[in-house]
C-alpha cells in the first residue's frame, strides 16, 4: 500500500508540466503548441506573437519568466484613450505625427522584461522607440500616431502581458518627475557651496587674516561666503522651512522645526558677524548641514519610490467607466459622466459617482470609505454613493450627480488613508527629537541668561546662544533614522517583503503577537485537491457551478473555478446573484435556482459526518442537494517551521479562520494550544478579536491575511501583512506585503526590524556624544568656526557610515546571505 502511494507520488512529480511562457506549473488543460507546453491560451498566444516577430530570445535571457496576459482585459477597454482630451493629458509630447507616452508598467520584473519592452518596434513598426526605466517601472514609447492609435498601443502591450497602469493621476497630467530633479539640483548647489565656502574659510581656520594686508582678503572671502550661502539658505533649505512652517500652523512640532530654527539662527548670526566685522560666521557649517540633510532626504525618497504600493490614493480611482447609451456600451472617462446617464459597473470596479441602482440588487463594498469589510446590500431604486466597490455581478446604475473629484478625494482621504497608526509623533525619531529639541533649547536659554545676567557679556551671550542651536542641530538624528530605515526597506524589498514606510518598520519591531488568517494565507490559494461526492453532475450543471463560482472572490470559489476542468464558464448571465459572506451564494440560471455554499446554506444534513481535513462546498439545484465538493487545502510547506520558530522566540501565535474547524487536529500541534485556534470567525469577529488582544492584553498584533477578505482586521492590527504572490494586488488596509514563499523568513524580518531600532538608538547615542562635545564648546562661548566645521560633517558621516554598515551586518546575520 505504502510503496504504491510513493509510486503515484513520483509519477505525479515526474509529470509536472511547466508553462514555457510564464514558468508556472500547468494545472488545467495543457496547451501544446510548437513543441512547448503552455498553461493557458493566453501564454501560448503571447509566445506565438513573440515567435512571429523573432523575439524568442526573450526566453533565453537569465531569469526570464513571461507574464500571462491579464484576464481582466476586454476589447474596447482602452477606447477612452483615443478621446482627444484624455489623449492630450496622457501624451508627454506630440507634434501631430510622432507622439510619446510614459506608462507605468507594474508587471515588469526582470531583465528580459526590459529587453522585450525595448523591442516593441519589432511587434509593430509604427512604434519608433521604447525606453524602459526599470526602477520606476516605466516605459517611454515614441510612436507614429498616424499609424497606431493610443488605445491600440495600450492593447498591444497588454497583449504581451504588460498591462499599462493608467490612473487618474496620469489623466490629470501630474509631473512627479521634475520634483525629483529639483532635489538633485539642490544637492548639487549646496554641495558646491559647501566645498567652496570651506575652501574660502581655510585662512580663517588658521587665523591667517590677522595682519593688515590680509584683512582685505579676509573681507573678500567673507563676502564670497555670504554670497555662496544665499542660494543654500533661500533655495536648497527652503523645504525645511516650508515643512516646519506648515507643521507650526497645524500646531505640532515636526523634525524639521528645530532644523529650521537652527538654520535661521546660524544664518542671522553669521550675517551679523560679517556686517559688524566681528567674525567670519558659520556659513561653512550651514552649507554642510544642508548638504548632508538633503542627501539623507534624497536617499529616503529613492527607497520609497522603489516600493510600488506606496502610491497616492488617487491612483485607485477609476479612469473610465462603461456607459450604456441606447443599448450600446462604450468606455468614457469618468469626468465626462453626465447626470441621467446609465453606466455599467463590473465586479470589483469602483462606483465613480453618486447614482441610483437600476439592476435589482448590488453588493457594495465600502471598505475603502468606511473601513467596514462587510459588503452592503442595495436594492433597485436605492441611492448608491460614490467610492464603493461592486462585488458580484455587473450592475447598471443611473448617474445622479456628476463626478466631482474633490468629493471623491475628500471621501477617501478622510478615513482609511489617514490612519491613526501613522501618527507622526509616535515614531522613535520624533519622540526623541521632541525631548532633544526641548533640552537643547533649555541649555541655550540657560547659557544665554548666565552670560548676560551673571557674567554681563551680551556679545558672548548671543554668540553662545546661536552656536548652541547650531552645534546641536538635529540633523544627525534625522540622518540616523532615515538611513537605517531606508536601508532596511531596501533590504526587506530584496527579500520580497515590501513595507509601506518607515513607520511600519518601527511598529513591526514592537510586535509580540502574531495572528494568522487561514484561507489563502497559510494555505496555498492555488493548490487544492478537489473531489466531488454525490450524484454525478451533468455537463450543464458543471457549467452552472463554474459560472456561479466565478462570480465570487472567495478563495474556495476561486479554487473551484480553477479545478473544474473541461467546461467553460458560460457567458449567459445569472440573475439574482447573492453572496452571503461565510455562508454561500445563490443565483438563478434561467428559472433554475443554484446554490453553492456550506451545508447549512443548502439545508443539508452534514453528509460527511466526521470532520476530515477538508472544506466542503455543497451544491443544490432547485433546492435539491446534488452533493458536495471536498476541497483539501494544501498548507504552505514551511508553515510548521515558521510557527515553531516564532513560538520559540516568544511570540504568541493565533489562528483565525472563517471556515469550519476541519483541520483542528492537524493545526493544534502546530499552534501548540487549542485555545489559540478560532474557527468560523466572521470578518467583524476577527476585527474584534484583534481589538481585544490590543486593549485587554496590551499586545502589539501582527495580522497576516490575504488582504482580500480581512481588510478590517488588517487595518485594526498594528501591522497588517498581506500575503500575496502578486505585489500589485493589495488593499490600502495593509502595511506590508510579503511574497508567499518568503513567509518563512518572517521571524528574521521581525528580528531585523528590532535590530534596526537598536541601531537607531545607538546612532542617537553617537550623535549625542558629538552634541555634548559641541555644546561644551558652545556653552563656554568658544565654539570657533573651525570646530563647528569639523564637528558637523564628521558627525554626519559617522552616522551615515555606522547606520549603513550596522544594518547591512544585521541583515547578513538574520537573513543569511
Amino acid at each position, binding site marked *: 500500500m505504502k510503496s504504491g502511494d510513493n509510486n503515484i507520488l513520483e509519477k505525479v512529480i515526474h509529470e509536472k508540466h511547466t508553462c514555457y511562457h510564464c514558468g508556472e506549473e500547468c494545472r488545467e488543460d495543457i496547451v501544446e503548441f510548437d513543441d512547448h507546453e503552455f498553461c493557458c491560451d493566453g501564454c501560448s498566444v503571447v509566445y506565438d506573437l513573440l*515567435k512571429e516577430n523573432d523575439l524568442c530570445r526573450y526566453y533565453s535571457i537569465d531569469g526570464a519568466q513571461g507574464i500571462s496576459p491579464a484576464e481582466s482585459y476586454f476589447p474596447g477597454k482602452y477606447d477612452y484613450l483615443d478621446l482627444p482630451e484624455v489623449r492630450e493629458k496622457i501624451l508627454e509630447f506630440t507634434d501631430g505625427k510622432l507622439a510619446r507616452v510614459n506608462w507605468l508598467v507594474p508587471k515588469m520584473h526582470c*531583465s528580459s522584461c*526590459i529587453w522585450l519592452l525595448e523591442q516593441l518596434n519589432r511587434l509593430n513598426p509604427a512604434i519608433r522607440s521604447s525606453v524602459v526605466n526599470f526602477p520606476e517601472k516605466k516605459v517611454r514609447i515614441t510612436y507614429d500616431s498616424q499609424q497606431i492609435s493610443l488605445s491600440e498601443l495600450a492593447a498591444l502591450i497588454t497583449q504581451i502581458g504588460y498591462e499599462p497602469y493608467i490612473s487618474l493621476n496620469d489623466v490629470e497630467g501630474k509631473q512627479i518627475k521634475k520634483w525629483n530633479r529639483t532635489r538633485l539640483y539642490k544637492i*548639487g548647489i549646496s554641495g*558646491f557651496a559647501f566645498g567652496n565656502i570651506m575652501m574660502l574659510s581655510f585662512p580663517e581656520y588658521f587665523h591667517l587674516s590677522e595682519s593688515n594686508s590680509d584683512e582685505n582678503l579676509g573681507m573678500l572671502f567673507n563676502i564670497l561666503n555670504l554670497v555662496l550661502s544665499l542660494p543654500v539658505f533661500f533655495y536648497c533649505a527652503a523645504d525645511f522651512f516650508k515643512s516646519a512652517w506648515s507643521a507650526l500652523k497645524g500646531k505640532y512640532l515636526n523634525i524639521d522645526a528645530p532644523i529650521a530654527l537652527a538654520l535661521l539662527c546660524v544664518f542671522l548670526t553669521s550675517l551679523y558677524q560679517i556686517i559688524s566685522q566681528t567674525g567670519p560666521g558659520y556659513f561653512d557649517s550651514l552649507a554642510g548641514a544642508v548638504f548632508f540633510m538633503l542627501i539623507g532626504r534624497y536617499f529616503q525618497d529613492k527607497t520609497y519610490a522603489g516600493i510600488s504600493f506606496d502610491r497616492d490614493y488617487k491612483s485607485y480611482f477609476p479612469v473610465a467607466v462603461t456607459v450604456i447609451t441606447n443599448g450600446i456600451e462604450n468606455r468614457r472617462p469618468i469626468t465626462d459622466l453626465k447626470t441621467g446617464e446609465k453606466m455599467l459597473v463590473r465586479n470589483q470596479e469602483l462606483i465613480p459617482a453618486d447614482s441610483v441602482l437600476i439592476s435589482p440588487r448590488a453588493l457594495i463594498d465600502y471598505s475603502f470609505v468606511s473601513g467596514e469589510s462587510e459588503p452592503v446590500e442595495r436594492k433597485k431604486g436605492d441611492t448608491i454613493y460614490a467610492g464603493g466597490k461592486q462585488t458580484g455581478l455587473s450592475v447598471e446604475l443611473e448617474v445622479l450627480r456628476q463626478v466631482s473629484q474633490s468629493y471623491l478625494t475628500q471621501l477617501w482621504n478622510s478615513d482609511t488613508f489617514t490612519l491613526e497608526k501613522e501618527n507622526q509623533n509616535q515614531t522613535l525619531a520624533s519622540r526623541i527629537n521632541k525631548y532633544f529639541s526641548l533640552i537643547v533649547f533649555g541649555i541655550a536659554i540657560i547659557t544665554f541668561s548666565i552670560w548676560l545676567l551673571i557674567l554681563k557679556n551680551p556679545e558672548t551671550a548671543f554668540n553662545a546662544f546661536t552656536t548652541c542651536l547650531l552645534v546641536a542641530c538635529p540633523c544627525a538624528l534625522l540622518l540616523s533614522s532615515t538611513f537605517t530605515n531606508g536601508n532596511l526597506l531596501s533590504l526587506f524589498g530584496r527579500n520580497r517583503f515590501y513595507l509601506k514606510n518607515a513607520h511600519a518598520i518601527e511598529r513591526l519591531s514592537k510586535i509580540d503577537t502574531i495572528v494568522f488568517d487561514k484561507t489563502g494565507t497559510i494555505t496555498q490559494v492555488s493548490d487544492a485537491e478537489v473531489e466531488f461526492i454525490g450524484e454525478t453532475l451533468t455537463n450543464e450543471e458543471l457549467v452552472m457551478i463554474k459560472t456561479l463560482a466565478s462570480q465570487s472572490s472567495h478563495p474556495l470559489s476561486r479554487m473551484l473555478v480553477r479545478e473544474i476542468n473541461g467546461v467553460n464558464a458560460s457567458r449567459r448571465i445569472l440573475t439574482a446573484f447573492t453572496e452571503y459572506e461565510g455562508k454561500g451564494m445563490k443565483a438563478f440560471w434561467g428559472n433554475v435556482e443554484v446554490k453553492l455554499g456550506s451545508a447549512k446554506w443548502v439545508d443539508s444534513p452534514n453528509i460527511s459526518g466526521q470532520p476530515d481535513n477538508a472544506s466542503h462546498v455543497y451544491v443544490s439545484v432547485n433546492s435539491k442537494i446534488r452533493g458536495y465538493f471536498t476541497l483539501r487545502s494544501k498548507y504552505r510547506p514551511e508553515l510548521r517551521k515558521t510557527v515553531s520558530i516564532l513560538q520559540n522566540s516568544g511570540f504568541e501565535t493565533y489562528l483565525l479562520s472563517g471556515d469550519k474547524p476541519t483541520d483542528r487536529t492537524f493545526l493544534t500541534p502546530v499552534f501548540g494550544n487549542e485555545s489559540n485556534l478560532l474557527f468560523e470567525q466572521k470578518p467583524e469577529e476577527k476585527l474584534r478579536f484583534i481589538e481585544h488582544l490590543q486593549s485587554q492584553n496590551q499586545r502589539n498584533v501582527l495580522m497576516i491575511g490575504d488582504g482580500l477578505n480581512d481588510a478590517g482586521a488588517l487595518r485594526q492590527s498594528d501591522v497588517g501583512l498581506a500575503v500575496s504572490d502578486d505585489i500589485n494586488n493589495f488593499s490600502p488596509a495593509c502595511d506590508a506585503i510579503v511574497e508567499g514563499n518568503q513567509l518563512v523568513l518572517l521571524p528574521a524580518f521581525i528580528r531585523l526590524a528590532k535590530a534596526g531600532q537598536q541601531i537607531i538608538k545607538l546612532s542617537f547615542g553617537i550623535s549625542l556624544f558629538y552634541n555634548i562635545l559641541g555644546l561644551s564648546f558652545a556653552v563656554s562661548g568658544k565654539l570657533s568656526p573651525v570646530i563647528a566645521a569639523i564637528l558637523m560633517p564628521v558627525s554626519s558621516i559617522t552616522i551615515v557610515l555606522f547606520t549603513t554598515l550596522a544594518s547591512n551586518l544585521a541583515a547578513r546575520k538574520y537573513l543569511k546571505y
Partner: protein
Amino acid sequence: MSSFREALYGSFGVSNNNPKVMSALYILIIASLFVAIGFLGAFIWSVRRGHFDDDYTPSVRILLDETDTKTGTLQ
C-alpha cells in the same frame, strides 16, 4: 599658529606683505570660483538631460545583445 602661518607662506617663498602677490590671489580666487561654477553648471545640465533619472536600466541594457534575429529563434 603664527609660526604655522610663516611656515606656510615661507614654503611658497612669498611674503604676506607683498601687495602684488595678494592681488594675484584675488584673481586666482575668482578664477577658481568660475571653474567650480563651470562644474556646477555641467552637473545641472546633466540632471536636466535626465542622466540621473535612471541609474539601473542602462547597466542591464548594455549586457543585452542588440537584435540578432537568426540566432534568437534557435534558442
